[in-house]
């Protein structure tokens, strides 16, 4: 096991920890083990094959920090803008909090909610306080990496422009915000755990992760545009209700110190900014044992409700799947897609993205005139929602629980056709259709009912596209391979190639709109294509799958 530089740095504070009654030597040992484990987290297929020592030092998390360095660059304008510190720095700290908080929930939840500690460390003669402190320090180490990645460049810019005082006060503020975030996150978890069981918490974390990924995708598109809207001359008069906007507490002390405007409200804000973070950490420390007790709930799960299949859904299922087997796979695939968090984390952000992206393109094209828009052919941007199909088709063969796939070998499965057709139908109806319907509803509002035939063609094309993707991609039994093997880059070329089909669909669609009744002809052709392809595509033998 290697010794970490971080820990050597921590050694300097040994005295502080000892003062608080923490067994520093033990804590250091615990942290060393945890950091080593973190270094081995996210094992890809490559790191499993090549077991060399260099690999161990590669911490995936550290590698992912560069994205936060990039996000940090967006903070620079707020430092440079002017001397209106209350406004600028409140925004600055607000954005900072948003990034740290979301990443805290997405990435550090596993640390905060680790229940292995309980089983492994508690039976050993290790002081509880040492265990909980090591947990805190573990989180703090990562949080400081993240913080440094985010703010070091903006703050250096600030140091150059606004001087040493600005720099120092900002650092102090950021430390306070970090404390607040740790405290608040832990208290939120405590709250959730008190009232819900572990599965719910895991679901909430999962949705935050999904939201974060989506936010980053969309934010990347929108952030650059948003700079046009920010009015640089906003002057902000402090109001009492702003007391609830906690980034303002920190903005206020900047304003106070840098501009020397000692208003009563500013003083109050500053006091809150110092007290609340310390208080939240104190509460967390104080109720840590309650937290640990409630963590036990993560292993316990309340009785969940029986979800009855409504008659209507059964009828619907009978309508789209003809054989019993196909229906079985449809149901299986639907519940896997609905329940598997790994799968959701990879797929849902892109689903959300595919809803947003047509609008981004429309907005880029038409900034001003709505009338132009509603008579235009911009509705063809709905084809952008098809670009998620290849990625999801690739993902369908992966699962975090791929080891459960032994059932396919044990059971008497003669034909593979229902497996594939059932799964693809489940994908189209459970994942793509909601996206499509939402987009269609908005598009009908914007473009009028005249686009209805076009939208139907789009759906048919989406189905054709899914089948084409299936035929071209390497075939595997659904949910039978480890999701860790999923590697975005290795599929990049083929996904890109498949995306050309979307361009083809959209191109033909555009051409068909140039003639009267052209789209109806296209509609008929699309139906025939789909029917023929569907008949051919799924006749696959076991030998083909085995390779």
């Amino acid at each position, binding site marked *: 096991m290697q010794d970490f530089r971080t820990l050597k740095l921590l050694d300097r504070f040994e005295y502080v920890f000892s003062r608080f009654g923490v067994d520093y030597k033990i804590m250091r040992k615990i942290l060393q083990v945890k950091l080593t484990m973190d270094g081995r987290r996210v094992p890809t297929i490559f790191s499993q094959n090549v077991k060399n020592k260099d690999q161990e030092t590669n911490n995936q998390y550290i590698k992912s920090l560069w994205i936060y360095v990039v996000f940090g660059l967006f903070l620079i304008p707020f430092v440079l803008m002017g001397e209106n510190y209350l406004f600028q720095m409140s925004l600055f700290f607000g954005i900072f909090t948003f990034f740290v908080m979301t990443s805290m929930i997405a990435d550090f939840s596993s640390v905060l909610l680790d229940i292995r500690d309980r089983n492994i460390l508690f039976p050993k003669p290790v002081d509880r306080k040492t265990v909980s402190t090591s947990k805190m320090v573990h989180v703090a180490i990562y949080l400081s990496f993240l913080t440094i990645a985010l703010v070091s460049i903006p703050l250096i810019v600030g140091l150059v422009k606004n001087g040493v005082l600005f720099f120092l006060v900002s650092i102090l503020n950021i430390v306070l915000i970090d404390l607040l975030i740790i405290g608040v996150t832990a208290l939120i978890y405590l709250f959730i755990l008190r009232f819900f069981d*572990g*599965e719910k918490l895991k679901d909430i974390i999962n949705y935050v992760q999904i939201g974060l990924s989506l936010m980053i995708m969309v934010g990347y598109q929108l952030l650059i545009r948003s700079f046009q809207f920010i009015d640089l001359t906003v002057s902000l008069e402090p109001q009492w209700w702003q007391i609830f906007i906690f980034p303002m507490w920190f903005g206020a002390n900047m304003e106070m110190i840098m501009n020397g405007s000692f208003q009563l409200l500013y003083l109050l804000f500053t006091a809150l900014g110092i007290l609340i973070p310390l208080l939240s950490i104190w509460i967390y420390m104080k109720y840590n044992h309650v937290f640990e007790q409630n963590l036990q709930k993560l*292993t*316990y*799960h*309340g*009785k*969940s*409700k*029986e*979800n009855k299949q409504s008659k209507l859904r059964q009828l619907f299922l009978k309508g789209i799947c003809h054989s*019993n*087997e196909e*229906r*079985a796979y449809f*149901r*299986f695939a639907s*519940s*896997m897609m609905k*329940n*598997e*968090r790994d799968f959701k984390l990879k797929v849902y952000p892109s689903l959300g993205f595919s809803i947003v992206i047509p609008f981004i393109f429309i907005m880029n094209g038409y900034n001003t005139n709505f009338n132009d828009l509603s008579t235009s052919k911009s509705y063809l941007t709905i084809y952008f929602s098809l670009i998620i199909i290849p990625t999801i088709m690739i993902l369908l063969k992966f*699962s*975090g*629980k791929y*080891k*459960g796939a*032994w*059932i396919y*070998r*044990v*059971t*008497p*499965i*003669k034909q593979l056709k229902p497996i594939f057709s059932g799964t693809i139908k489940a994908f189209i109806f459970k994942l793509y259709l909601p996206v499509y319907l939402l987009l269609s509803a908005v598009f009908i509002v914007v473009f009028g009912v005249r686009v209805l035939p076009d939208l139907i063609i789009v759906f048919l094309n989406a189905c054709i596209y899914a089948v084409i993707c299936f035929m071209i991609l390497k075939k595997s039994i659904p*949910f039978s391979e480890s999701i860790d093997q999923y590697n975005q880059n290795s599929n990049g070329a083929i996904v890109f190639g498949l995306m050309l089909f979307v361009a083809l669909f959209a191109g033909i669609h555009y051409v068909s709109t140039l003639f009267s009744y052209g789209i109806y002809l296209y509609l008929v052709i699309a139906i025939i294509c789909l029917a023929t392809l569907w008949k051919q595509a799924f006749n696959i033998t076991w030998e083909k799958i085995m390779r």
Partner: protein
Amino acid sequence: MMEEVILEIADLKKNYGSKSVLNGVSLQVKKGEIIGYIGPNGAGKSTTVKIILGIEDNYSGKINIFGHDISDGNIEYKRKIGYVPEIAEVYDNLTGQEYLTFIGELYGLDLDLANYKAKSLMELFGIGEVYHSRIASYSKGMRQKLLIISSLLHNPELLFFDEPINGLDANSVMIFKEIMTQLAAQGKTIFYSSHIMDVVEKISSRIILLHDGKIAADGTFEELKQQNTKGSLEQIFNQLTGFNEHRELGERFVSVVKEM
């Protein structure tokens, strides 16, 4: 009727690279037998079962089930087989209901029938209240019960239980033993591997001991006792696998423990 051969293995060999796991296993199983398939860790018990079920291939030798050679690619025989694997790997993000009905449907059961049977069996096994919970939340014993139920939904003729009572409490083990006896009385054949010798001793109508990829003993418990002059199955097991150093190893182990 009782003499009908259900399973016949002839000279089964299997190796992983240069390491051979099975060196010519031959056996015949007759209808209604409960076979205790025992052997030390790594003797090849699970491998034998996996080959029979088509999870592992690339073996040499012949396997006939219900009178058909399984190497011909016809998988119809699997319809009459139930299997509980040694390691409980399941799609555990599904609920018990979702998983069991899916498995039932894979075996060709109608959804409603699969649902009814799965629910009743879960209730009878004392885990009815988690039928609609995710399997991820199950305890080890609950998972094991789920696997046992999933292997029986389709009323199979031949059952392979690989360490089936792993994690079950004493009462559940009693239920399970009773289930096995009842199933055998109905003419089902059970192929059962375990490390818990006194259970094997009590319920098996015939015991096969596998050692170093070969059959070291085959017969009823009484027959094995006569051949080996030892009292319990555990002692017979030690004797046949050539293991008699347990006292010495134990002493050395404790002496290292004492070192400080």
